[in-house]
């Protein structure tokens, strides 16, 4: 059951035939090589597979690839511009918010969406916005600090 879809990934127009049984995660990782999209739990609990669809964070493991038709997808590979890390990425490094790194792409994408919303967030709201991600190294404090830093000023 192949279906031809066109969508933008990290600014690049892609047209390919996907199987309707494939998740967006599988297509991004296995067909397009965006291995920064991590497969964690596979059931939308851990947030490691988070990507932005039209600017909105979603779990790509429970999102069928065919639904990406016409959408603008951003993965962690699309965050740095011209070789320069984004504000969020820099804040993660400065705050030591990375341990094993498996959860990091997802967190960075959610934080990027928060930054781009232009909204102000309290610490409690930051925690709530990040609650769809699990860090199994349990480095939550530094992650929250990094997001606070990226969102400041």
């Amino acid at each position, binding site marked *: *059951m192949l279906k031809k879809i066109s969508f933008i990934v990290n600014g690049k127009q892609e047209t390919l035939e996907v*199987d*309707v*049984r*494939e*998740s967006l995660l*599988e297509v991004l990782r296995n067909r397009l090589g965006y291995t920064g999209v991590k497969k964690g739990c*596979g*059931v*939308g*609990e851990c*947030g490691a597979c*988070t990507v932005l669809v039209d600017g*909105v*964070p*979603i*779990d790509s493991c*429970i*999102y*069928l690839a*065919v*639904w990406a038709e016409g959408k603008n997808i951003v993965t962690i590979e699309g965050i740095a511009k011209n070789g320069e890390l984004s504000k969020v990425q820099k804040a993660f490094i400065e705050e030591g918010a990375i341990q094993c790194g498996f959860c990091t792409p997802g967190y960075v994408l*959610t934080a990027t969406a928060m930054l781009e919303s232009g909204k102000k967030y309290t610490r409690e709201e930051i925690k*709530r*916005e990040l*609650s*769809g*991600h699990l860090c199994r190294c349990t480095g939550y404090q530094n992650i929250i600090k990094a997001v606070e830093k990226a969102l400041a000023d």
Partner: protein
Amino acid sequence: MYDIKAYFEAETIDEATRLLADNPNLTIIAGGTDVLIKIHHGKIQKAELLSIRKIKSLEGIRKLEDGTIVIGPLTTFTQIINDPVIKEDIPILTEAALSMGGPQIRNVATIGGNICNGATSADSAPSLFVLNAKLKLKSQQGERIVPIQEFYLGPGRVDLKPGEVLTEIIISAEDYTGYAGHYIKFSARKAMDIAILGVAVLCKIKEGTIFEDVRIGLGVAGPTPLRCLEAEEYAKGKSISGEVIAEIGKLAVRSTKARTSWRASKEYREHLVEELTQRALKAAVVKAGGEEIA
């Protein structure tokens, strides 16, 4: 890859009901946050899916001239949370929507899916029960409107007949005007968790001190979400006091059919019903302009 045998996509309600009439095995999929997980766990095998994601008329929230609020079943939890009409008129649904899953799930999960899954733990259910939400269901044979309290039939079972699609969630002005409410989700974690108990309370106060109307909706207190009619009946016309609220809490337990699961025992859930009904009602009283009761 998901175990999907067939995948259909409808762009109009008529197309969806026609496809459903032709193939009774179709499972409707919208946000996919429940259906895909059921497929992942093998609870649905060789799935034949009908996607209703492209049906524009099932999206969005409208307020009619007479105050009726109509919620399209494809409305996501994030859209519910951010909607000014919901926040102003029925904030008890905003509170419930905020308690569901995490942000990524709320960005795709739909309120229609939450209802049609038939889960007693559906986070929207206690609020929709106290708001006396009505559901419009359409098929090739026509349409009918069912009160949400009658729509839930049993665990995972709803009164969605073969060939039917949920097209509107309707809340009448008389069911929210003058009411204030409070919602409590009791769970082990604040996010990404299933409720041990969900409690929604709406109340209307007259002369500042008397319960004109009280409505109590519970999730996970029985095989389906439910209302505590005995406690509600008792509350009507009573002077607001700690004793009366304590009695309402006790009576609320009598409407429940809680069971023991790994999340909590029947006894603990019954304790929570009694306690949290009181807490939610006390908070609702304050929001309705009544005195704070310790």
